[in-house]
């Protein structure tokens, strides 16, 4: 198989919601905490903390904390693009860019996630392509569930480990 096929993956999920609501769910701290993170802290380029409800902007930096893990397990990165409407991009695993785009397809809102520039050595392919795509599949499903008024599917019990929901 061509190694380039392991350097990126794209996932799409249809959600019964509007673009503005979905954009706030991916581009504000409180939105991200509703379906993705236990705690999301953002600072602007001058180092000032951002309000949980304020829209994020390019060059903001983040600290992300996960359900099921202590605060010492923290992912740090940068917002690469936030157009205030339908595109939100940030650095993620191994500093690879993740771009989320919102658009309509056959009259339905599509949330499309692209993670690219993944290294294609054997270990990274096994760990990051598989691990990241599997992680995003769950979290995008949870975004759909939360935005459509359903359950938050995340495991929030730190004593329970080895589950796909955290």
């Amino acid at each position, binding site marked *: 198989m061509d190694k380039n096929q392991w350097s990126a993956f794209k996932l799409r999920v249809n959600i019964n919601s509007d673009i503005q609501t979905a954009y706030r769910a991916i581009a504000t701290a409180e939105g991200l905490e509703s379906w993705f993170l236990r705690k999301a802290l953002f600072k602007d380029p001058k180092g000032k903390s951002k309000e949980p409800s304020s829209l994020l902007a390019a060059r903001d930096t983040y600290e992300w904390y*996960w359900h*099921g*893990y*202590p605060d*010492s*397990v*923290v*992912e740090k990165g940068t917002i690469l693009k936030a157009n205030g409407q339908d595109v939100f991009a940030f650095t*993620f*695993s*191994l500093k690879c860019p993740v771009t989320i785009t919102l658009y309509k397809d056959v009259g339905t809102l599509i949330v499309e996630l692209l993670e690219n520039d993944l290294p294609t050595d054997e*270990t990274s392919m096994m*760990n*990051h392509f*598989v*691990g*990241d795509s*599997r*992680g995003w599949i*769950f*979290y995008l499903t949870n975004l759909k569930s939360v935005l459509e008024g359903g359950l938050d599917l995340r495991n929030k019990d730190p004593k329970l*480990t*080895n*589950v*796909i*929901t*955290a």
Partner: protein
Amino acid sequence: MKVLPLSELTRNRKKIPVYTDHVLATLSTSGPFHCETHYTGLGIISLLNGKGHFNINDHQIALNTSSFLIVNRGSKLSFKLSPNSRLVILGFNPKLSDLVSQTMFSQNKKRLPDKINIHDYALLEHIHIMNSTLKNHLEILIALSSSCASFHALKTDMVVRSILDQLIHENYDAISYSSNLSVVKKNTQIHLYKKLSVTKRWMEHNYGEPISIDHLADIAMLNNYHFLRLFKQAFGITPHQFLIKTRLKNAELLLKNSTLSISDICHRVGFESVSSFSTLFKRRFSKSPTEYRRFTEN
């Protein structure tokens, strides 16, 4: 991170191993276990169960669940484990550790003496007191190594990086403090620094107990005068001043995070008299313990 069998990690009898990624090996013993002498990469050795005797560069070290060992790149290691032990070895990717330490050392403004090898961890190669954060991190790594958790590789990287950052910070401090010791021979400097560092860590874990200079010098295996002089030289502070600082720092945490009375906090952190505790606390934080608690509550 790669998960390897222990035999893979300890097979290097003739040359220093170069890991292409972080590596994790675990071993549970049912009977006695002996591992022959081999070369190590930079890493952490810990026991989650049982006990073991380690021989590192001809120094004998007894390890149990309340301690861990840092091993330097290129050290010679052999060990024996007792039955029902659970060994964890975490080896760091040398490229990443070199890159991170290079960045950290170049960003720091304090000038270190020339000819210092910032990738040498000999100063940290000794027994360390286990802390709950590291124990927790090792347990998370073991769990993630066979987990279906979302983003397991990313989370593994975050945990390893957190441990590595801490290690590099400690090495920076060790290089920085040890360079204050006015000794000519490098081996003497390493030897003395390790003794002082172990004693300093011991104080950080036992500050609540009555501690005498005799006892500290005994732990450092130095005579009182020599210990006092070298400790001040390395850390720029006397052992007594360090102890007071440690007690006050922990008192501050208890005032912030507990409902214990001032008197209980005073005795818990090792002060005998509430009035001397209050005086020292006010001198350091510009507020009495009561005022400080009220201030943090508001």
